[in-house]
């Protein structure tokens, strides 16, 4: 399938990870063209 069609079917997924007060991690997944605010660790998939 052409790449352009893949992009339409699958909007970018953004991954933003934070560390909670007790040391556990929490990962926020958002989708769409706009990336959320930067935090400790993030990436686009």
């Amino acid at each position, binding site marked *: *399938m052409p790449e352009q069609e*893949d992009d339409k*079917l*699958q909007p970018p*997924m953004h*991954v933003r990870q*934070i560390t*909670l007060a*007790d040391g*556990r*991690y*929490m*990962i*926020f*997944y*958002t*989708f769409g063209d706009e990336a959320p605010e930067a935090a400790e660790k993030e990436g686009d*998939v």
Partner: protein
Amino acid sequence: MSELRFNPLLGEWVATATQRQDRTFLPPPDFCPLCPTKPGHFPTEVPEPDYDIVVFENRFPSLKRNPDEPVLEPDGIYDVRPSKGVCEVVLYTPDHYTTLAAASLERIFKLVRVWRHRYEELGKLDFVDYVFIFENKGEAVGVTLHHPHGQIYAYPFVPPVVKKELEQCSKHFDETGRCLLCDIVEKELAFEKRVIAQNDSFAAYIPFFARYPYEVHITTRNHRKSLAEFSVDEERKLAEILKQVMAAYDRLFDRSFPYIMLLHQAPSDGKAYDYYHFHIEFYPPMRTAEKLKYLAGSEAGAGMFINDTLAEEKAAELRALVEPVSWK
């Protein structure tokens, strides 16, 4: 305190996790720890006023990245080890009052992509041999928090049920040169009477060997070992068939239908497992609108399930309730 204790009779590990006794139990909606934290309101586990999908380490985990040392030393036939692994909670939506069955295809598709990402990321950890994605839904299966969510356990070993499936699939491949689940899907689609729904990429059926009255399996029609091998179209088709099956479940007794949902896919221990095949299994505890199927003596003590119903009849009931789905 948490540790893994070995059962020498069954050759299996048992997680002892005493901190789970005090975990949050059926709080009222205003005190739901999985909702977003709204300004001026009760601080929840999620320190933001909104989210799409969130994954975090379970506050009451059975397995931890940095576990404590066990309270007892290994002693001959009684082996014990730290409960090393990962337990994650996956919040499907910020909406406390909905369910995955009622969610849009777009949301379920997002979840499938998150599942894939977690499977791949947790599978890279050198202490993880198996990434197990599942959902417990409804008080009837022991759910303690109603907010729509699932869990992920990253085990330091291949768990017993999956191990047995792998052995059966390997044996079938050695004997026939074919994938067992490919053969099962082919038989179910040919027989038709146990099929609930299908699309280009998936078949949903009550299996020939169903143990629960409304047990449904969703299996890829092409040979895929895990979510990591899915195309974008297969991820979308999975969202479609999940929605169809879960919505049909809710129509059965005209109420939100309890179930255990689990994903069986290839282990992450570095071995090939080319003979294994991705599939999802649903174990619903309801056998009628009013009655539960309990795991009693034969099931729990001997491992032989007794199904009081015919798979073909239950499949006909569910199939009649499946409706087309559409993307926005």
